[in-house]
C-alpha cells in the first residue's frame, strides 16, 4: 500500500515535520497529524494550492496549542485499544522535545510566581543596566575608535615627544609643523597621510540674527581616503582644493545636512559663511562619521583653504615655516607595514632637517585613534576605568540579592520539586530546569538593562561627557554581546546555588515535612549573602564619599575671585576691523551694559583666569633679569575699566585703575599683585616702581591687589600686573566682556545678546556664557566620580535593603511555627524582635568590617584621582557604615515587628 497517498496530495513536508516536533509525543500528537492529513486530502479536491495554504495556516494554530499543552499537568492515563495494524505506542521524548519541555516549564514557573519574577528580574535589570551603561562608556572611550572608519586599527595618529615650553620635562604633543607633514606624505610606510584638526572649533555660520555657532573640523584631501570614507552626496576633498587661488571648500556631515538643509541635494555648490571666510559645499559624509576624534562635528573645512583664510595667504608663511607647530597629522599604514616601522621612518624624516641635538630630545611616536591612547586624554578616562570596576560590584550585589530571593522561593517549592523527583525527574534535569528559570529571569533583566542603558545612559553620558559623541548602544555588536555575557554570568552567580540546593532536598523528608523544617544552614547562607551585599555596598559608599568630598574641596578653593557671579560675552567681529572700530564696539558695549538694571559692573579682559596668559618681554625696575619662581610670570593683563570691581578683587595698597587711567594720553600706570610685590620689592613695596613692557615707557605702579588663580585650581601663586588696555604696546585684542550681576543667581538679561550685537556694525555674533564653565571643565572628573559613585551606591543600598526585607519577611513567615511556640511559652515580644534583628545586625557588621578593609585597599589606588582627600578619611568611612546599618535596620524593622506580633494560635494552627 502506498502510505504516502498519490503525489500532490501530501501536505507541505517541512510544515508537517515542524508539527511533528512541536506536538506532544505519542498517540495524541500523531492522531492530530493524521486528522490534518485527512483534511488536507479532502481539500485537495478543491485545489492543491488552497489545501496547502489551509494546512500552513492551521499548522500554526495547532503548533501553539501543542506547545502550551505540553506544560499541562498530569493526564489520566488512556487505555488504547488497537484496531488494525500499525499502532504506534508513541515515541519517547527526544532531545528537542526535552528542550521545549524545559523552556515551557520555566515559563510556567515564572508565570506562577509573578512577584518573585519581577523582584528577581528587576534586581538583575538594575545590576545589568549599570554594567551595560558603563560598558557603553568604557567601550567608547577606552576600547573603540570613532565610528565610521574603515579598518581603524590601521590608522595612526602621529605625535612628537619633545621638551616642554616652561620646563625641560618632555611632553607629547599632537601637532607638528607643516613641512613635517609634507615630509611624512613622501614616506612609503604610510599609504595616506592627512593633516587635520584634532577636535572641533566653534565657528559662526552666517551673520546677524540668523547666525549660529557650528562645530567645524578641518581636513586635508587625504583625510577621508585615509579613514576609508565615501561621500553620500557630491564629492570629498581633492588636492586641487588645496592649491593657491582655489575656491575654499567645505564638506558637511550628514546630521548637519539633515537638520539644516532637510537633505536637499541642492545644497551642493552653495556658499556658506563660516568664521572669517566663505566656503562652497562640495559633498556630505555618511551618517555616524564625525572624524578622527570624538568631538561633535557639523562640517569639515578644507585644511589649506582654512589656513589661508585664518592664518595668512603668504604661501611661504606657513608652508615652509618650521617654527610654528599647528598641524595634527594622521596616516594609514601601508599594507604589510607595522606601526613601529612607520614610526621609525617618520622619525628619520622628522630629524633629517633638524639639528643633530634634536635626536636626543625629540622622538616621533604614533597612537591609535582610541581616545584613551591620546596624549591629552581627559582625566575622565581614569575615572571611567574605576567606574568599570564599580559597576561590577553593583552587579555582584544584584546577583547576591537575586540568589537570596531564589533561595527563599525554593523553600516553598520543596514539595513540588520533591514530587517531581519522586516521579523520576533526574537530578541533573532538575538542576537544568531551575537554572533555565534563572536564565529566563536574567534574560528579561538583560533586555530591560539594554533599554535602561540606552535611555538613562544617554542622560548620564551627555551630562558627564558633554564633549563626546556616543553612538547608540545598539549599534555595533560589542555592547549587546557584553550584555549577553553579563546575563549568563548573572544566571550562574544568582542561580547555581539555589538550583543545587533545591535539587539536593531529601525527598521523603520534604514531602512529609511540608514547608516547615530545619532551615538552619540555608539561613546561614542567606546571612552570608546579606553580609556580602553590605560589604560591597560599603565599598561603593566609601567611593562616593571620597569623590563627593573631593568635589566639595574643589568647589571650595579660593580662586581669588568668584567665577559664579560672572557672565562672559564674546564679541565676534566681521573680518578684521581696524583697532579703533574694534575698541569702539567694546567701550560702547560697556556703556550700554552699565545702564542695564541688575548689572553691577562690567569690563573686558584679554587674558585671565583659566583663559591663558600673556608673557611679553618686560623689564622691572631694580632688576637686571626676571627671577624664576614656581608660579612663573610676571604675566601681563591689559584690562578694561572697572576690572577689579567686576572680578571682586581686593586692593591691598594704593588704588585701582580709574576711568582717567584709561583715557588716551593718560600717564601709563599699572597695578601689581601681591606675589609680584613679594618677589620684586619685598622691603620697599611696589608703589611707585616702574615696569617697562618691551620698549615701552615706564608704567608706574599705583596699587597692589590680591592674588588670583591663573590656570589651575591649586597652583603656586604667579606674578601678575594689570595695565589699562591700550592697543600698543602689548597689542592684544580683548577676549571677552565680563559682567557682574547684582544678583548672583539672576539669569543673563534676555536682550543682552541683541543689545551687544547692536553696538557696532562690525559685530557679527555674540556668545554669552557663564564664567564658571571654565571651572566646570577642571572639576569635571570629580563631579563624574561623585555622581556615578553616589548613584551606584544608592542603587546598591536600595537593592540590598529590598532584598534584606523580602528575605527576612520570608524567613519570619517560615519560622512562624517556631516563633509561635516561643510566644506561647511566654517569651516577651521584644526578645523575638531582638532575635530577628540580632542576626541581621551581625551579618551586616561582618560585611561592613570586611568591606571597610577592602575599601581602604582600593582607595589607595584611587587616591591619585581625588582632590585634597586622602584614602582614609575617617568621616567618610564612619558615615558609610552608619548609612548601611541604618538602611539595614529600617529594612528589618517591618519583619521584626511582625515577628513580635506573632499570634501563637494562628501560627501553630496553620501547620504549613
Amino acid at each position: 500500500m502506498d502510505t504516502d497517498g498519490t503525489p500532490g496530495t501530501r501536505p507541505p513536508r517541512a510544515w508537517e515535520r515542524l508539527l511533528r516536533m512541536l506536538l506532544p509525543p505519542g498517540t495524541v500528537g500523531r492522531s492530530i497529524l493524521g486528522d490534518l492529513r485527512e483534511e488536507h486530502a479532502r481539500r485537495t479536491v478543491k485545489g492543491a494550492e488552497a489545501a496547502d495554504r489551509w494546512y500552513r495556516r492551521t499548522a500554526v494554530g495547532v503548533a501553539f496549542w501543542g506547545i502550551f499543552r505540553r506544560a499541562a499537568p498530569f493526564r489520566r492515563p488512556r487505555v488504547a485499544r488497537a484496531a488494525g495494524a500499525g499502532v504506534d505506542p508513541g515515541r519517547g521524548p527526544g532531545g528537542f522535545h526535552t528542550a521545549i519541555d524545559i523552556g515551557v516549564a520555566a515559563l510556567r514557573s515564572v508565570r506562577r510566581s509573578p512577584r518573585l519574577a519581577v523582584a528577581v528580574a528587576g534586581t538583575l535589570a538594575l545590576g545589568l543596566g549599570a554594567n551595560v551603561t558603563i560598558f557603553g562608556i568604557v567601550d567608547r572611550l577606552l576600547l573603540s575608535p570613532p565610528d565610521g572608519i574603515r579598518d581603524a586599527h590601521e590608522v595612526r595618529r602621529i605625535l612628537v615627544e619633545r621638551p616642554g615650553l616652561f620646563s625641560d620635562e618632555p611632553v607629547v604633543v599632537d601637532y607638528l609643523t607643516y613641512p613635517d607633514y609634507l615630509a611624512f606624505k613622501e614616506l612609503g610606510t604610510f599609504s595616506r597621510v592627512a593633516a587635520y584638526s584634532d577636535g572641533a572649533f566653534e565657528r559662526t555660520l552666517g551673520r546677524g540674527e540668523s547666525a549660529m555657532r557650528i562645530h567645524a573640523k578641518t581636513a586635508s584631501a587625504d583625510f577621508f581616503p585615509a579613514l576609508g570614507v565615501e561621500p553620500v552626496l557630491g564629492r570629498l576633498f581633492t588636492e586641487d582644493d588645496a592649491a593657491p587661488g582655489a575656491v575654499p571648500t567645505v564638506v558637511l556631515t550628514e546630521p548637519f545636512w539633515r537638520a539644516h538643509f532637510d537633505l536637499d541635494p541642492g545644497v551642493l555648490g552653495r556658499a556658506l559663511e563660516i568664521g572669517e571666510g566663505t566656503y562652497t559645499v562640495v559633498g556630505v559624509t555618511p551618517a555616524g562619521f564625525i572624524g578622527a576624534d570624538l568631538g561633535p562635528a557639523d562640517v569639515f573645512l578644507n585644511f589649506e583653504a582654512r589656513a589661508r583664510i585664518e592664518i595668512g595667504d603668504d604661501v611661504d608663511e606657513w608652508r615652509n615655516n618650521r617654527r610654528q607647530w599647528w598641524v595634527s597629522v594622521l596616516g594609514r599604514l601601508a599594507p604589510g607595514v607595522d606601526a613601529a616601522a612607520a614610526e621609525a621612518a617618520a622619525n628619520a624624516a622628522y630629524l633629517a632637517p633638524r639639528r643633530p641635538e634634536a635626536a636626543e630630545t625629540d622622538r616621533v611616536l604614533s597612537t591609535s585613534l582610541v581616545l584613551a591612547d591620546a596624549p591629552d586624554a581627559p582625566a575622565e578616562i581614569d575615572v571611567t576605568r574605576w567606574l568599570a570596576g564599580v559597576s561590577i560590584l553593583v552587579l555582584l550585589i544584584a546577583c547576591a540579592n537575586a540568589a537570596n530571593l531564589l533561595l527563599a522561593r525554593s523553600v516553598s517549592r520543596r514539595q513540588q520539586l520533591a514530587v517531581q523527583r519522586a516521579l523520576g525527574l533526574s537530578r541533573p534535569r532538575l538542576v537544568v530546569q531551575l537554572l533555565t528559570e534563572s536564565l529566563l529571569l536574567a534574560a528579561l533583566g538583560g533586555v530591560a538593562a539594554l533599554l535602561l542603558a540606552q535611555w538613562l545612559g544617554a542622560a548620564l553620558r551627555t551630562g558627564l561627557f558633554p564633549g563626546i559623541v556616543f553612538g547608540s548602544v545598539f549599534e555595533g555588536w560589542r555592547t549587546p554581546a557584553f550584555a549577553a555575557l553579563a546575563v549568563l554570568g548573572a544566571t550562574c552567580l544568582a542561580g547555581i546555588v539555589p538550583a543545587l540546593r533545591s535539587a539536593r532536598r531529601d525527598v521523603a523528608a520534604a514531602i512529609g515535612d511540608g514547608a516547615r523544617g530545619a532551615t538552619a544552614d540555608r539561613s546561614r547562607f542567606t546571612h552570608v549573602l546579606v553580609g556580602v551585599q553590605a560589604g560591597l555596598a560599603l565599598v561603593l559608599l566609601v567611593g562616593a564619599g571620597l569623590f563627593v568630598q573631593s568635589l566639595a574641596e574643589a568647589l571650595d578653593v579660593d580662586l581669588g575671585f568668584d567665577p559664579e557671579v560672572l557672565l562672559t560675552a564674546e564679541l565676534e567681529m566681521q573680518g578684521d576691523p581696524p583697532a579703533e572700530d574694534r575698541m569702539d564696539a567694546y567701550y560702547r558695549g560697556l556703556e550700554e551694559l552699565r545702564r542695564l538694571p541688575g548689572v553691577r559692573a562690567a569690563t573686558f579682559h584679554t587674558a585671565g583666569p583659566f583663559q591663558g596668559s600673556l608673557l611679553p618681554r618686560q623689564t622691572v625696575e631694580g632688576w637686571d633679569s626676571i627671577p624664576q619662581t614656581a608660579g612663573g610670570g610676571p604675566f601681563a593683563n591689559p584690562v578694561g575699566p572697572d576690572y577689579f570691581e567686576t572680578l571682586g578683587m581686593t586692593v591691598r595698597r594704593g588704588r585701582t585703575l580709574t576711568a582717567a587711567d584709561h583715557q588716551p594720553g593718560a600717564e601709563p600706570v599699572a597695578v601689581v599683585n601681591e606675589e609680584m610685590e613679594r618677589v620684586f620689592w619685598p622691603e620697599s613695596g611696589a608703589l611707585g616702581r616702574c615696569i617697562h613692557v618691551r620698549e615701552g615707557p615706564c608704567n608706574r605702579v599705583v596699587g597692589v591687589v590680591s592674588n588670583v588663580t591663573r590656570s589651575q585650581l591649586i597652583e603656586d601663586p604667579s606674578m601678575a600686573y594689570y595695565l589699562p588696555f591700550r592697543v600698543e604696546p602689548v597689542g592684544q585684542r580683548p577676549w571677552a566682556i565680563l559682567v557682574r550681576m547684582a544678583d548672583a543667581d539672576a539669569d543673563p538679561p534676555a536682550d543682552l545678546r541683541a543689545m551687544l550685537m547692536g553696538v557696532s556694525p562690525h559685530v557679527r555674533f555674540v556668545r554669552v556664557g557663564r564664567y564658571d564653565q571654565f571651572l566646570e571643565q577642571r572639576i569635571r572628573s570629580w563631579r563624574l566620580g561623585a555622581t556615578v559613585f553616589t548613584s551606584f551606591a544608592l542603587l546598591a543600598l536600595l537593592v540590598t535593603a529590598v532584598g534584606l526585607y523580602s528575605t527576612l519577611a520570608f524567613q519570619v513567615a517560615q519560622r512562624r511555627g517556631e516563633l509561635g511556640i516561643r510566644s506561647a511559652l511566654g517569651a516577651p515580644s521584644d526578645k523575638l524582635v531582638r532575635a530577628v534583628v540580632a542576626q541581621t545586625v551581625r551579618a551586616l557588621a561582618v560585611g561592613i568590617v570586611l568591606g571597610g578593609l577592602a575599601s581602604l585597599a582600593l582607595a589607595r589606588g584611587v587616591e591619585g584621582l581625588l582632590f585634597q582627600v586622602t584614602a582614609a578619611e575617617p568621616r567618610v568611612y564612619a558615615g558609610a557604615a552608619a548609612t548601611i546599618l541604618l538602611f539595614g535596620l529600617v529594612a528589618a524593622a517591618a519583619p521584626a515587628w511582625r515577628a513580635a506580633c506573632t499570634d501563637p494560635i494562628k501560627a501553630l494552627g496553620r501547620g504549613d
Partner: protein
Amino acid sequence: MTRQAALGEFEQLVLLAILGLGPEATGAGVSARLDEKAGRDISRGALYSSFDRLDRKGFITWTVEGGTPERGGHPARVFSLTEAGLEALRGQQQALRRLADGLEEILEVGRS
C-alpha cells in the same frame, strides 16, 4: 448523579457533533461536521483544546484506531461520549427546551 460542571456553548456543539458522527468521530470529522451543520469554521487549536477540556471533565473518551493511507499511516482518535457526558448534554438540552418553551414562534425553532 448529574454532573454539575458547566458546559460551554462550544463544548455543547462539540459533544453534539461527536454524538452525531458515531464511529466517524475523529478530529477531522468533528471539524467538518461543525462547519457543515453549524456553519462554524473553528481553529484546530480551539477544537483540540475543547477535546482536552471535555476529557478532563470526564465527558468524553476515545479509542485509537490504526492508520489509514489517507492519514499517512498516522493513528486516529475516535471520540465518544461517556455516561457523564451524555447526562450533561441531556441536562443542557432540557434546560434549553424549558426556557424556550412558549417562545417557539419568535425563535422559529422547527423540527426539521
